[in-house]
């Protein structure tokens, strides 16, 4: 019984491998919202922290990042951390992010407890040889009271579906 299950699984795997090789040289790629995972945390009554976790083999362009917070205004322009310099034959020197980066957005004219929606626009590529068009991800968080505890980080994309729940 056990061996027949193993046999079935093995042939299924062989079939899958065969199919994918016949289908062509397409790289296995993540959906952009998973390749460039956004989370936001309200750190105090007038500051939100935006974090990107970029999957291995993917990168974002620093100059393509845009941020907006509604209903609020940014107290100062977003201070993006420096990226890695990359020479682009057409655009000149560009900066890219890999791995993780974070920045804080200072908000003006907000009240404690206000729910704010952070909209982050980003554009990036996979080393496998594709680029994604700009995507906008949104996260809504509630601002804590002055001196209150920071909110929990909220992810833009729900956790990957599991077979076990």
């Amino acid at each position, binding site marked *: 019984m056990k061996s027949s299950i193993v046999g079935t699984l093995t042939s299924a795997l062989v079939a899958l491998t065969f199919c994918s090789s016949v*289908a*062509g*040289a*397409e*790289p296995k*790629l993540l*959906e*952009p919202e998973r390749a460039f995972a956004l989370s936001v945390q309200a750190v105090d009554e007038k500051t939100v922290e935006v974090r990107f976790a970029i999957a291995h083999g993917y990168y974002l*362009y620093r100059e*393509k990042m845009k941020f907006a917070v509604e209903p609020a205004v940014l107290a100062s322009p977003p201070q993006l951390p420096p990226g890695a310099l990359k020479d*682009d*034959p*057409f*655009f000149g020197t560009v900066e890219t992010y890999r791995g993780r980066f974070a920045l804080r957005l200072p908000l003006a004219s907000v009240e404690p407890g206000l729910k704010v929606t952070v909209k982050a626009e980003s*554009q990036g*590529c*996979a080393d*496998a*040889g*594709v*680029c*994604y*068009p700009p995507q906008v991800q949104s996260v809504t968080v509630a601002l804590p009271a002055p001196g209150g505890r920071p909110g929990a980080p909220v992810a833009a994309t729900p956790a990957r579906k599991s077979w076990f729940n």
Partner: protein
Amino acid sequence: MTRPFSTRRILSWAGLALAGAIALSAGLYFGGSADRGSGADLRGKDAAALFGVALPDTKGREQSIGQWKGKLLVVNFWATWCVPCREEMPEFVKAQQEFGQRGLQFVGIAIDDTAKVEAFAAELGLNYPALIGGYGAIELSRSFGNRLGALPFTIVVDRAGRISHTQLGPIKEAQLRAIISQLL
């Protein structure tokens, strides 16, 4: 982005949307599913929905994809902001030069604005049409199996007007040569 919407532009969007809807329903009808990856589902299917698309070129003249029916047609979705797209295009220029007389026709659909496309086309010596699709063209490519809406995405249509190949990601030179020798 700064240019106001003209009637022609709105019409071309309507055309794109319609073509997309037709292609999508065709895909669904034939059992294709948008999340099974790109490619295989649409192979061998009629490219009528693609031939129905018309987009402006860099001079603003409306160009119908249908005008290239009967050629071995390679429709490549690209953008200047996509490095792998730019990297594979010299190969296309070379192949267009070499096989254009025998019926090979490349057509680029740029998810980009005209000024950047013109600048890059001049730098590269682009010898095939560059149509300006904007982000709406990403949706068009999705309807032909570009599940992730990423670039480059390429559709090969044989001389009989059937989709023979779709691919997300760059086409290697050897692969392009194989497609040409098989279908031209």
